[in-house]
Structures are given as C-alpha cells and as structure tokens.
C-alpha cells in the first residue's frame, strides 16, 4: 500500500508534473523559462488570499501575529522522531535508480563563494548541462545558483540548455541592507536574465515579531521578479538555522507562502544547521497544509548540508510520505547543493556497473 495524495491538485494545469517525470528517451525534459504549473497570480490576488486565510481586512502586525501564533505547535521530539523514522526507509534497486535521476533533475547546482569567478561559473554550467560525460541517459540539473554579478556569465553559458539560472539576492546571505538595496540587487539579477531569485527574509525582523515587515519584503521582492514582463520565480530563504524553533519555522513558512513565495527554502548554506530532515519535513507539512487550505501549491528547497545520495533519498522519502507525490518533481522540490551531484553520479555508476566508484571517475569543477 502506498500513498496517492488525496488533496485536490488545485491550480495545476492539465499537464501536471507527472507528465514529464522522465522522458522516455532518457533525456532530461526541456524546462520552460516559466517552470512550475501554477497559474500566474497577480499581487492583488495574493493579497486577497492572504487576507482570507488570515481572516482580516487588513494584513497588519496584529492580524499576522494572531494568525501565525494560532498555527498548531510543533513538538520538537515528535517532529525529530518522525524524521528519524522516515530516514530508516530502505530504498533499493529500481527505486534507487529512479530516485538518483530525479535527484539530479532537482539539483540547483550552487556556488556562492567570495572567490567565485566567471571561469568557475562556466565550469559549473558545463557540469550542469552534462553531469556525466559520455552518458546521454544522465539528466541535467534543474538550475545553476550564483551571486547576481555572475548571472550574465551563467545565462550565457547555459544558453538554451533548459537549465535555469538562479540568483541569490536581497543582500544574501544576511539580508542586512535597506529595502532599496535589496530590491535593486534583485532587479539587477532579474534584468540579467535570472529565472529564479533566492531571497532571504529579514530574520531580525521575524525574531522581533515584525511579521508585517517580513511579509511586505516578500511582496516587494516578488513584484520585482514579475516586473516589466519578467517571470522570475521567487524562492524565499527562511534561514531556519537562525529561527531557533520549529514553531518559528512553521510560522515563517506560512508567512512566506501568504506573501506569495513560489518556493520556501530552508537555508543560505552559510549557517549551521541548514537543511536538516526534520526542518524540511516540517516545511513539507506546511506546503501540504497550505495547498489544502488555499489550493495553491508551493515548492520546497532544502539547501546546505545535503552531500550524499543517501541524505537526498531520505528527503525524497519525506516528500513522498509527507507532502505527497505531487511534489516529487523539479518544479516543486529542489536541492540546493554543490557536492551532492558527484556523489549521486558515483552511486549511479555503481548501480550501472555493479562496482563501487571513486572520486576520480566523476568530474571535478
């Protein structure tokens, strides 16, 4: 017996994610510039929905606080216990092969170093498009994730490969800059051709209870993502490692979703702990519940700390058993990672040849 998500898949076009789960010829499916199948919502639709969910005529500090603090609590021990149980699933043979290819298709191949250069980014882009030279069945990754000054390099290198360019913006990773600076940061990345914007929330504002400010930040960044005909998708980084409690993670997830996030993302990768399984599972519960309540599906992106195929497979198990199979798709689930890809490739080789692989048999970029 296994799951079939029973929640109605509101807001999805008929060509649902399952349709392109894996192209029969083994090639990665072409991903459009506007990935995701949710119909585009206007800012006013988003605000209307938020008001309806919160049950208020004006989304102010008080109403947001009342709503977010009225969400069910999270028991830490229980949440971690559940994640621990999900982690015991044993994924073998055909399931594992399927999972490894899906993981590759879900990777936002990331480099976010002060030492990044156009050369480094071009190398990463080459790897993104052709992770396993000589193996045409190996899919491409979902996106390459870089700082905004390197977006033009990535856009150029990736061309029409279908691999997206994601840019971290809004004074990543701390977010400690004026709203003007953060929006300008975003605007430059969008104008340079980024398909996806990974913004950070103002954790200081969140932790001091200024939920309205966080909400408005997200709304404003989303507007920039969609201005002048741009269609960049917005991933909202909660930086869960700084939020300290699971209750906060749940509240921040809902706050971001209410403000119009296309994805909620765990971490910048600069803070530990980053994408732990309990945190990701909690965010999967949040997107599941949000769709149940609003009909709107939001994606989840764990980032930071997922280095092995084994870790990533545990995440897929959580996706399947908590949010449901509708999320088992690069449009709805991403891994923000750098070293994960090579481990997946080695595992893939092992499944194909029967022999354990080694680091010299995958490319280093």
């Amino acid at each position, binding site marked *: 017996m296994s799951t079939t998500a*029973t929640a109605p898949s509101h807001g999805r076009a008929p060509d649902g994610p399952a349709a392109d789960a894996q192209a029969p010829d083994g090639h990665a499916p072409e991903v459009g510039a506007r990935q995701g199948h949710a119909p585009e919502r206007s800012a006013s639709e988003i605000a209307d929905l938020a008001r309806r969910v919160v049950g208020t005529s004006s989304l102010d500090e008080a109403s947001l606080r009342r709503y977010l603090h009225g969400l*069910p609590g*999270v028991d830490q021990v*229980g949440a971690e216990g*559940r994640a621990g149980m999900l982690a015991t699933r044993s994924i073998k043979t055909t399931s594992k092969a399927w999972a490894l290819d899906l993981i590759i298709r879900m990777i936002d191949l990331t480099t976010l170093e002060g030492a990044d250069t156009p050369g480094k980014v071009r190398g990463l882009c080459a790897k993104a498009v052709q992770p396993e030279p000589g193996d045409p069945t190996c899919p491409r990754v979902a996106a390459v994730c870089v700082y905004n000054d390197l977006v033009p390099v990535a856009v150029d290198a990736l061309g029409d490969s279908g691999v997206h360019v994601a840019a971290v913006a809004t004074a990543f990773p701390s977010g400690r800059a004026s709203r003007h600076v953060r929006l300008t940061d975003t605007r430059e990345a969008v104008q340079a051709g980024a398909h996806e914007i990974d913004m950070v929330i103002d954790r200081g504002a969140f932790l001091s209870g200024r939920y309205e400010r966080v909400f408005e930040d997200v709304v404003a960044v989303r507007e920039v993502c969609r201005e002048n005909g741009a269609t960049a998708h917005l991933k909202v980084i909660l930086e869960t490692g700084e939020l300290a409690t699971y209750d906060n993670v749940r509240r921040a997830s809902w706050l971001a979703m209410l403000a119009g996030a296309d994805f909620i993302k765990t971490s910048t990768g600069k803070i530990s702990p980053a994408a732990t399984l309990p945190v990701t599972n909690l965010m999967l519960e949040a997107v599941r519940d949000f769709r149940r309540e609003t009909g709107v599906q939001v994606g989840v992106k764990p980032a930071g700390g997922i280095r092995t195929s084994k870790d990533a497979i545990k995440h897929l198990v959580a996706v*399947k058993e908590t949010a449901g199979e509708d999320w088992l798709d690069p449009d709805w689930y991403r891994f923000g990672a750098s070293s994960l890809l090579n481990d997946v490739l080695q595992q893939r080789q092992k499944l194909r040849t029967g022999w354990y692989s080694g680091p010299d048999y995958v490319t280093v970029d």
Partner: protein
Amino acid sequence: MSPFEYAPAPESRSVVDIASSYGLFIDGEFVDPADGTMFKTVNPATEEVLADVAEAGETDIDRAVRAARRAQETVWGPMPGSERAKYLFRIARLLAERSREFAVLETLDNGKPIRESRDVDVPTAAAHFFYYAGWADKLDHAGFGVAPRPHGVAAQVIPWNFPLLMLAWKIAPALATGNTVVLKPAETTPLSALLFADLLRQAELPPGVVNIVTGARETGAMLVAHPGIDKIAFTGSTAVGKRIAREIAGTRKTVTLELGGKAANILFDDAPIDQAVEGIVNGIYFNQGQVCCAGSRLLVQESVADEVVDRLKERLATLRVGDPMDKNTDVGAINSAAQLERITRLAEAGTAEGATRWSPACDLPEQGYWFPPTVFTDVSAAHTIAREEIFGPVLSVLTFRTPDEAVAKANNTPYGLSAGVWTEKGSRILWMADRLKAGVVWANTFNRFDPTSPFGGYKESGHGREGGRHGLAPYLVDGSTD
C-alpha cells in the same frame, strides 16, 4: 503505481539458524519432554512451519522448578550481587552482539515488522538487562531495607506480542534480586526464548538459574499452580490474570499482573497536530495494535474531530502493510489465526452496532494472517469496540467537548494501563495527568518504553510495576506489599 514505489528491501533470514525441533531448557540443557508431546510454531506472515517445540507437562514443570530451587539455594542466592551483576551485563552484551539474529527470529515467529524488532524489541531487551545488572549489587540502597531478600523461585508467563522484550522485563529484575526463574513463553512465539537459552550457554549462566518451558495455556497453569513457586509474574489477558489471582488466593505466592487495556489517547484542539497524528498512528498501529497499552480509543475534541480524522486517514494511506521482513514495512502480520479471528469478530461487531468503518486501500498477502489498519468513526461509549480490548490494528474514534468530559470518558473503563494527552498547554497536561487513572500517562508522545521507567496498570489492567526501581519491589520479600 507510484513513480517512487519502494522496491522490496527484505532483511536476510540467513543470519539465524532455526532447528527443526526444540526441547525444554531445564537445568542448563535442552531435554526432551517426559511424555514426548510436541507442537508446531508457524510464521504468521506465511503460515510456514518454523519448528516443532516441546510441550512441557507436569513432570517437566516439576523438574524445572526443582532445578530452579536448587540453583537458587546453592548458587544464585548465595552469590554476591556484584557477581550476579556480571552475568546480567554479559547477557546484555550478548543480546546486543546477536541483535540481528534475534530481530530476524522475532519477526519470523511473531509477524511484527523487522523495523520494530530491530529498532525496538531487541535493543530495549538488551537495555533492560543492562539496567537491572547494575542493581544487583546495590539492592541495599533501593529503599527496601538492608539486604532485602528474594522470594526464591519465580514462575514467569509471558505473552506473544513482545516475546523477547517481555522475557527481558521478567528475567532481568528476577535475576538481579537473586531469584531463579522458570519462564514459559507464549505458545505461538517460543523461538526467541529458545535462542535466548543458547545465549545463556555463551554467558555461562549457572544451570538452573533460568529454565524455559514451552507449551500452551495448560503448561502455564501447571507452572503457576506448582507448590514450589514463590513468586508469579504474568503478562497477558485480564481473563487469565483473574484466573491466576483466584488460583493463588489463600497461598503465600505473590503475583505481578500486567493485563489488558483500552487506553484513551486524548487530543485537544491546541495539540501539535502533526505529532499528534503520528502519536495516534504509533499508538494503535505499532505492532499491529497487539499492545496492551495501545491507544485504542481516540478521544478527540469535537471542534477538530473532522480535521483530525481527515489527516489521520491521509497518513494511514502511507502506511506500508505486508512482508514483515521488508525493512520498509510499517504494519506486519497478526500473530495467529485465533487472534485474527478475534479482531475480525470485534470489527464486525463495530459495523453491526452502527459505527463507520474505514481502512486505506491495501493489498493484503494471500497467505498468512492479515488485518488492515482500521478506523471506526461514529463510535459511542456503549459500542463493543469502545469497551473491549481488541488487541489489533483497530482504532475507535470518540469525541469530547471539555477537559472534564475527556477525563470522565477516558476513565470510564475497567482498565487503567495507559493514556495519552495531546495539548500544547502545560498546565492542562498536568491537570489531566493528575486525574487519569492510568499507570502510564504519555503526554505529547505515546508508546514510549524505557528500562528505568515503571510500567503497569490501575484497576483490571493489573498490579505491580515492571521497570525502574519500582520493578525490583515485586521480586523482594521486603518490597512486596501484599
């Protein structure tokens, strides 16, 4: 078909050797039963016969009790606690070393998922021995006076739901306090106890300190009635518990009884909802619900009842029912045809009395004893399924409006083994815990067990406690209160 249907991940059964037949373990060796009677034990998931097992009769019981008496008087009783401790530590270590073997055997003989025997039964059993080992030379400080005395020979009769773990719960405190043991495993699950006998050989435990006599109910009755027994520890049904209590009335045998339950799992509208749903699932579908402290009655606050039931059903659809040896199985086989018949009969009564029955879609294997995870809604307190212990994967959902009503409904049963409370309000938890007549109250968790934590019931769920310092008392003359 899901794109991510987990492929079979079976645990290998080659780690364990099962003999074609087993004798009785008496005085340190396996012996044939005096009258040669044997019975079969089967794998409930496949109905495959695993082994022939000896059925102990009067003569065998007498022999075992005498061996235990001799060992108690000449070896185990006089032995310093510090030395007894070392044997118990050895047993704990050996169990850990052979844990995979025990887990596989337990799953084969019992039908429980390998994930549970591997992650719960076997490690907790080892932990129990480790815990009580440390008590053996500290009994003077346990609060029962200086040099508290053991009763002598303990007769221990254990159930089939946690065969090895119940063995550990019984044997570890008995041995730590200087008693010797004659243990009777359940008729349908004798194999892990017989493998334990082999472990005792490795531990070089003196002969007669632990004797294992297999058999059915008659064997248990003969053991309990044997005049050479000083102390009885029984875990099983309330009906048999009452029979034992009546049997020993007027004697000086003392008894610990761990009997049935019909626990309420109480969910308030401010519960941590996702963990509460997990707690409900763990409460009633863990070990196929064949747990005396199972949360078989869900009492949910009326304002959130529909939402909770919806979420519960959604969660149950992800449970994986089937081959217990598969590492991804959540719900395994029912232990026996007889138990399956009982569960089926009670579930049918639920439908007949007007409750609404629901199970997730699942394909049950054709061979073996299977029952799908089942939820009954529209249940009222008068329904059979709300009162009788089903001992299977069957949840009855009832509602309440106020904390007082929740307490009243939770306590409205002759049982009193366990209860669950789910709410984020701390003061309400303590208020509830004060009022629930249950030996174990799990707040924002369920079905947790630990060697240091006393376990046992109020009312018809039995008396005496197992686990912790309290678990020593029933094995000491100076700790007994009856």
